């Protein structure tokens, strides 16, 4: 490490605010690819997950286009792609979105960028490990691209045995190895964040004086560390099974496919919270900032994140209600799953209460936060239909499930991610964007999202099964609405891309604290200095907005001096 100390230390001798930030402190491709700076690593993740989002979105558009026509007519069958193509698109859409976008999106991109800054620290606890995690992610991503070239994957993202081992002719071993490697990336990121939050908190920042984003990341990291090894070993077993003729999960060789499902969901249910909790963490920052009010029920917010993480470990059986699992297990898993509603409802209640009588600013991040609450409420409530056993049996493996988890999980991640992207954009890039264009983008995405998934609830209840390339005529109208929504969603994403690119090209210079937030990350310059802070930031309640005042000169907010203690470690 000694080398980096002098390297970085020598770069900010000029005290030039423009010349000394993390983006231009060192130059050249190598200074990015081998960087140990958490901010640059965060940006590398940010770019990577956006590419993954575009790739997964393309598969979504392909499969939705295929589903524009159904009804078993020859024209419908030949409309675009074969049923086999559909299986591939459906699988790759799910796998790319889950493993390459949703799991790393918020923790790895924004967690990396913001977490040390919220602690007033210079970096995460293990910077080299952090870079290694990124390259594991990169390797896993490249392997997924290799899978694409090698003829794709048609097992569904769940890779259920025995289909995946015995029947699938696609590149299953590569995909399992990719998931194995991506899992390690996720584990090491979580491990790094836990150590950082424990050991790099400044003196005086007790756990209950941390911004709630950190609580959310902490809870997420615990899940990443404790659940991911199980899918790691599972994918490794699948890989070995496939190449060595073992039958761990193949009934023809004495194996038990149900065991595969148990182990798979032991990870993959908690993984839902790896995706959702960080999104909630972003919302916890955005709503109080733009309501100019402290967050309502801070401690309940912190504990509910931990409660969700904990309960998330003991509900996996709700994915196996019709698998032949024992009725007793069904009842138990159903009951435990229902209890997730309590911490989830606490969060929604607290967000709404935070806004109550607040001075609400309809900025772009706030729009996403408001839409997030709506999506999460609908997604959560339809979850109750699914965890109730009779409701589950009726809707099992139908589009109702698809609509549910897109609302609760995908909606949460996409809207949380975009809220975070728009919230921290000025900090990350040092540029402001056009708020009107931002709001327009958020509305388009919101409308597109609803148009895509609301009809899926209806057709699911009417019995349209998931993962089918064709369907009965009666479902056509719902599929067509859904496909129209998917394209509208695409237009919304393009809008976001355009105004953000415009901001990069000719956006106005962002002040340090354009939103008037009170957490430490906003006391750095925009973009931040190589070492995050030039002056030791002043601590205080992260949700006390009386600590900042509007500054006419820069158009942003500044920390009132003299209040709160310095964030020394």
């Amino acid at each position, binding site marked *: 490490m000694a080398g980096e100390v002098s390297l970085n230390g020598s770069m900010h001798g000029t005290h030039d605010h423009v010349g000394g930030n993390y983006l231009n402190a060192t130059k050249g491709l190598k200074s990015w690819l081998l960087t140990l700076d958490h901010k640059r690593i965060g940006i590398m993740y940010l770019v990577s997950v956006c590419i993954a989002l575009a790739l997964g979105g393309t598969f979504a558009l392909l499969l939705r286009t295929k589903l524009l026509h159904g009804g078993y007519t020859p024209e419908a069958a030949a409309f675009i792609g074969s049923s086999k193509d559909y299986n591939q698109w459906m699988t790759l859409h799910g796998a790319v979105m889950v493993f390459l976008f949703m799991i790393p999106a918020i923790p790895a991109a924004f967690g990396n960028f913001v977490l040390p800054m919220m602690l007033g620290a210079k970096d995460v606890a293990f910077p080299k490990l952090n870079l290694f995690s990124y390259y594991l992610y990169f390797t896993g991503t490249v392997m997924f691209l290799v899978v694409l070239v090698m003829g794709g994957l048609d097992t569904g993202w769940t890779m259920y045995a025995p289909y995946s081992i015995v029947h699938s002719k696609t590149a299953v071993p590569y995909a399992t190895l990719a998931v194995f490697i991506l899992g390690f990336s996720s584990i090491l990121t979580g491990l790094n964040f836990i150590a*950082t939050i424990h050991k790099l908190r400044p003196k005086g920042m007790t756990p209950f004086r941390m911004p709630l984003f950190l609580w959310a990341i902490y809870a997420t990291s615990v899940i990443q560390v404790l659940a991911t090894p199980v899918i790691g070993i599972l994918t490794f077993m699948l890989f070995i099974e496939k190449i060595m003729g073992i039958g761990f999960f193949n009934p023809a060789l*004495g194996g038990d496919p149900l065991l595969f499902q148990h182990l798979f969901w032991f990870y993959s249910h908690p993984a839902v919270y790896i995706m959702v909790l960080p999104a909630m963490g972003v919302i916890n920052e955005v709503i109080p900032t733009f309501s100019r009010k402290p967050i309502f029920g801070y401690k309940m917010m912190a504990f509910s994140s931990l409660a969700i993480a904990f309960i998330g470990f003991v509900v996996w059986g709700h994915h196996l209600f019709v698998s032949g699992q024992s009725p007793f297990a069904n009842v138990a898993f159903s009951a435990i799953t229902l209890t997730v509603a309590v911490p989830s409802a606490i969060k929604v209640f607290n967000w709404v209460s935070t806004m109550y009588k607040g001075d609400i600013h309809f900025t772009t991040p706030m729009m996403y936060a408001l839409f997030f609450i709506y999506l999460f409420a609908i997604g959560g409530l339809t979850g109750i239909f699914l965890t109730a056993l009779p409701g589950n049996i009726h809707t099992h493996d139908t589009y109702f499930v698809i609509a549910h988890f897109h609302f609760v999980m995908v909606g949460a991640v996409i809207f949380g991610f975009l809220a975070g992207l728009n919230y921290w954009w000025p900090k990350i890039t040092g540029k402001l964007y056009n708020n009107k264009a931002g709001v327009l983008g958020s509305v388009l995405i919101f409308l597109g999202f609803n148009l895509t998934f609301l009809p899926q609830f209806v057709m699911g209840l009417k019995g349209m099964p998931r993962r089918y390339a064709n369907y009965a005529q009666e479902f056509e109208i719902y599929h067509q609405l859904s496909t129209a929504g998917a394209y509208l969603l695409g237009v919304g994403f393009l809008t976001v891309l355009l105004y953000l690119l415009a901001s990069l090209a000719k956006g106005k210079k962002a002040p340090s604290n354009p939103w008037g937030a009170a957490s430490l990350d906003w006391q750095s310059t925009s973009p931040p200095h190589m070492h995050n802070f030039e002056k030791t930031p002043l601590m205080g309640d992260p949700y006390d907005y009386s600590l900042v005042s509007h500054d006419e000169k820069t158009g942003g907010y500044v920390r009132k001096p003299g209040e709160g203690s310095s964030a020394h470690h």
Partner: protein
Amino acid sequence: MSSTATAEPAHAHGHHGHEKNLAHHFDTMEQQFDAGKIGIWLFLATEVLFFGGLFTVYSIYRANHPQLYHIGQYFLTWEMGAINTAVLIFSSLTAAWAVRAAQLNQKKILVSMLVITFLCAATFMVVKYFEYSHKIHEGVLWGQAFNPSDAELNHVIEKIEHKGGDPKAIEFLEAIKERPVAEKKDMVAPLQMFFSIYFFMTGLHGIHVLVGMGLIAWLIVRASKGQFNNRYFAPVDSVALYWHIVDLIWIFLFPLFYLIG
């Protein structure tokens, strides 16, 4: 890069700026050590869950086919497992001693303890090599590759008779002698599963031992250069912790496969 001025970063290094093993983002050696400690313990937790998935698989199949785990055990040589258990337990002692030696600046003891630990690990792998090569030679293999030789089957039958007999097991093994084994799929499938799990779990454990040997070798090089002292011994501490978990996993594997038929 050639700028000369070096203003103090926000959190001034101050008095501890001279510690050469202190990374720039930590303020004190203690903070750095504690962070590393949390990191390694979390890593050990992931190892436990990693193997935890496999122990689950072991338990499920054992519960479903107890009689075949019973027979499978006769194919294993418990004496070899016992030697390896003793070797690993002893190496855990020397690993712990190495940490203590580093803390007390006892360079010679540190290096010799690390060398002994390394040799124990090597002994473990040599014993494992003999076990594996015998099994591979006699066709006692995983999954569909399971096709034990008559000599091995006779040997196991003899072993059972020597222990006082187990008519059901002997009957089963005699039946396997009728070739080809592949045609008795329903019958031998659980035994194939036993060896699949045996090779998978002990193989994965063996990989962990090899990784441990690499890490210990790296420590030996650094220790003999005198890079560890009472202020800086975190790598020795972390590798020792890793080594303990590798030993601990074996301590579970040994009775589960070799003893409790």
